């Protein structure tokens, strides 16, 4: 047999999805799954209707509500008082019914942030192409899928054709080697990377995260890393599937080889008559396919970078762009640290917006609010890690703190483990699932001038509410800040027994 040219994981997934390469035009690639939510879909459904087009593959679409929904109580979600938000949620409900899309409504046991429920359902799988009208679709790359955010015109395009015209991105491998120090998490890895390469450092690239520190991460940690690829400008982030990935997927509702008996009384798919062996064989065959996705020895990337994990520290943003990162033992930079005139201008503007003096030690920055949640850090492991820090302490009197689980499943799991009690006893609000204060489309917003330690992904001006100031950090760091009332080095925390490398 002829020796094949070594390929990267991205190239393998891309090649498998090429429908046609018309001469002089972008390649048309097949999309395995489109995730749909209320904010970026109504105009796309409308477009289909106006053109008299059908939704080509309803079975390759999954929809839920997340951006707009109130998180205060189950009742508040059923009757949304914000009329414009309510109209948008109702529109999705109607559109899904009309076009035959499976829809996880506010009260459904599988509802949650769209990037939480894909993996939870086992809908997200290695080797797939996944899109959604949301930039944090990069999250799903943690499974070795090629997953990226798109605009509403493209959402409509996928609805009509299940394909997208795309020009082939370049490839960029970031190797994170070694062991993470105690108290340093996946969030700190990705914040460090963004700080290093800048918010446009990976524009035009698909990033593959590799190296022993990435391999050691749980699926939750890998999702956190891939989630913020977009904050470095990347088209997508990917991590090769391995035993950790397969263990996560096995037995999930939409995973191959999951027998209908595992479906908790849901309508069973076909195959009731099949034997356990048949299901096991199906699973093994899928795993065999997924294993072959890893980047071949000798494959060439357009760009490559290596980071020593052992040198990383807990990170926190000081400014109004995710690239404005310092370590917790560091300081707000001064204008002398600006490398270019453009940086200088951005720094000046950020100092003013954030109301921070250059040179202020990060640990001295006081916070008014703490937000624990989002598609970046709203998973069960994040809540467990934060609860460990919180246990036996109380939220500072000057701070309002809230935990917003990323999904109904996470909420239920956390409640079964008693984490809700830990948070509530400590003075945190315990909320219903959704995007919430990550972007403040629902009523969860900061007031002008308020400062928030947030586990989310963007610290843009006004992101969490007009005039609000955001510091991005890990769940552990957010929890510690809630207790002390200021940004706090979690490595000095006496409850902190989290082991390096695992997160």
């Amino acid at each position, binding site marked *: 047999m002829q020796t094949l040219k070594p390929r990267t994981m991205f190239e393998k997934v891309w090649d498998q999805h090429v429908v046609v390469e018309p001469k002089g035009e972008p390649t048309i690639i097949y999309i*395995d799954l489109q995730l749909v939510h209320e904010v*970026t879909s109504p105009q796309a459904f409308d477009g289909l209707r106006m053109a008299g087009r059908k939704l080509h593959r309803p079975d390759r679409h999954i929809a839920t509500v997340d951006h707009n929904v109130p998180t205060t109580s189950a009742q508040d979600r059923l009757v949304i008082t914000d009329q414009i938000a309510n109209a948008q949620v109702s529109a999705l409900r109607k559109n899904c019914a009309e076009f035959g899309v499976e829809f996880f409504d506010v009260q459904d046991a599988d509802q949650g942030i769209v990037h939480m429920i894909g993996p939870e359902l086992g809908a997200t799988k290695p080797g797939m192409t996944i899109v959604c009208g949301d930039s944090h679709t990069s999250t799903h790359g943690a499974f070795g899928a090629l997953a990226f955010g798109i*605009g509403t015109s493209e959402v409509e395009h996928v609805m009509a*054709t299940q394909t997208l015209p795309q020009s082939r991105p370049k490839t960029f491998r970031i190797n994170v080697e070694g062991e993470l120090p105690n108290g340093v998490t996946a969030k700190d890895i990705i914040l460090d990377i963004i700080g290093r390469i800048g918010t446009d450092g990976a524009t035009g690239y698909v990033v593959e995260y590799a190296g022993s520190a990435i391999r050691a991460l749980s699926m939750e940690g890998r999702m956190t890393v891939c989630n913020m690829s977009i904050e470095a400008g990347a088209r997508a982030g990917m991590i090769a599937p391995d035993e950790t990935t397969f263990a996560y997927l096995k037995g999930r509702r*939409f995973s191959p080889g999951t027998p209908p008996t595992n479906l908790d009384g849901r309508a069973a798919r076909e195959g009731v008559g099949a034997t356990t062996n048949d299901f096991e064989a199906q699973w093994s065959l899928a795993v065999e*396919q997924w294993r072959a996705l890893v980047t071949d020895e000798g494959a060439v990337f357009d760009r490559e970078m290596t980071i020593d994990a052992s040198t990383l520290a807990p990170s926190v943003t000081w400014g109004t762009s995710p690239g404005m990162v310092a370590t917790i033992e560091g300081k707000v930079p001064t204008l002398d640290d600006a490398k270019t005139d453009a940086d200088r201008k951005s720094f000046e503007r950020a100092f003013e917006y954030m109301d921070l003096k250059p040179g202020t030690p990060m640990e001295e920055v006081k916070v008014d609010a703490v937000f624990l949640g989002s598609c970046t850090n709203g998973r069960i492991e994040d809540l467990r890690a934060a609860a460990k820090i919180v246990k036996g302490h109380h939220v500072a009197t000057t701070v309002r703190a809230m935990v917003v689980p990323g999904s109904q499943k996470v909420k239920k799991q956390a409640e079964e483990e008693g984490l809700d009690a830990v948070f509530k006893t400590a003075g945190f609000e315990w909320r219903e699932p959704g995007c919430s204060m990550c972007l403040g489309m629902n009523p969860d917003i900061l007031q002008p001038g308020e400062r928030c330690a947030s586990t989310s992904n*963007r610290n843009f001006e006004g992101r969490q509410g007009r005039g609000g100031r955001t510091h991005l950090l890990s769940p552990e760091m957010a929890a510690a800040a809630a207790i002390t009332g200021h940004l706090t080095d979690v490595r000095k925390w006496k409850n902190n027994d989290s082991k390096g490398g695992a997160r």
Partner: protein
Amino acid sequence: MRPINVLTSTAAPLPLPNIDTDQIIPKQFLKRIERTGYEDFLFYDWRYNFDAAGKTTPNPEFVLNKPEYNGAEILIAERNFGCGSSREHAAWAINQYGFRAVIAPTFADIFYSNAGKNGIILCRLSDEEVETLIQRSTKNPKHKITINLEEQTVTDDEGFKAKFEIDPFRKYCLLNGLDDIGLTLRHQADLTQYEAKHDAEFWLAPKGASL
């Protein structure tokens, strides 16, 4: 989508890098289900001042509120314009406000794609070229810039001339005002053939496989 080729207009300078889509159109306006009516919300938090009760008045300092920049159809900004969220509302707001082109050294990927689907020309020029145009439009709001898509040039009558790169297919679509779905459906036969084979690859099926 309206076809576009040659555009001559005054330009509004926004000399900042990393202008994100949250600034271009803040989230509270994403709750609408319409595709039109976003012009009044463009750069909302920068464009208006807010009093304690949240009442808005135009911020006289902001470039779009200066009468001398009325009618500008070109926006000039610094690098990484349109970073952040995938919201196409950003492209809709820019377009509906009346801009037909944005000039910057670099654009974020998703915004770049969204703009193209709304007939907006994005011109990537060098940092120095952008700086020159920003200075000229700041000093003289009546300064006119010409973008020629066919020739891929940006010129003015003070001797400025720069070339910009654009994907040939994207250029073809902009020149002819074509939208993508119809273009893709020309390949229906390829799609049908591909799908038949691909559907058998059950390990890539989103909702699992039956036995």
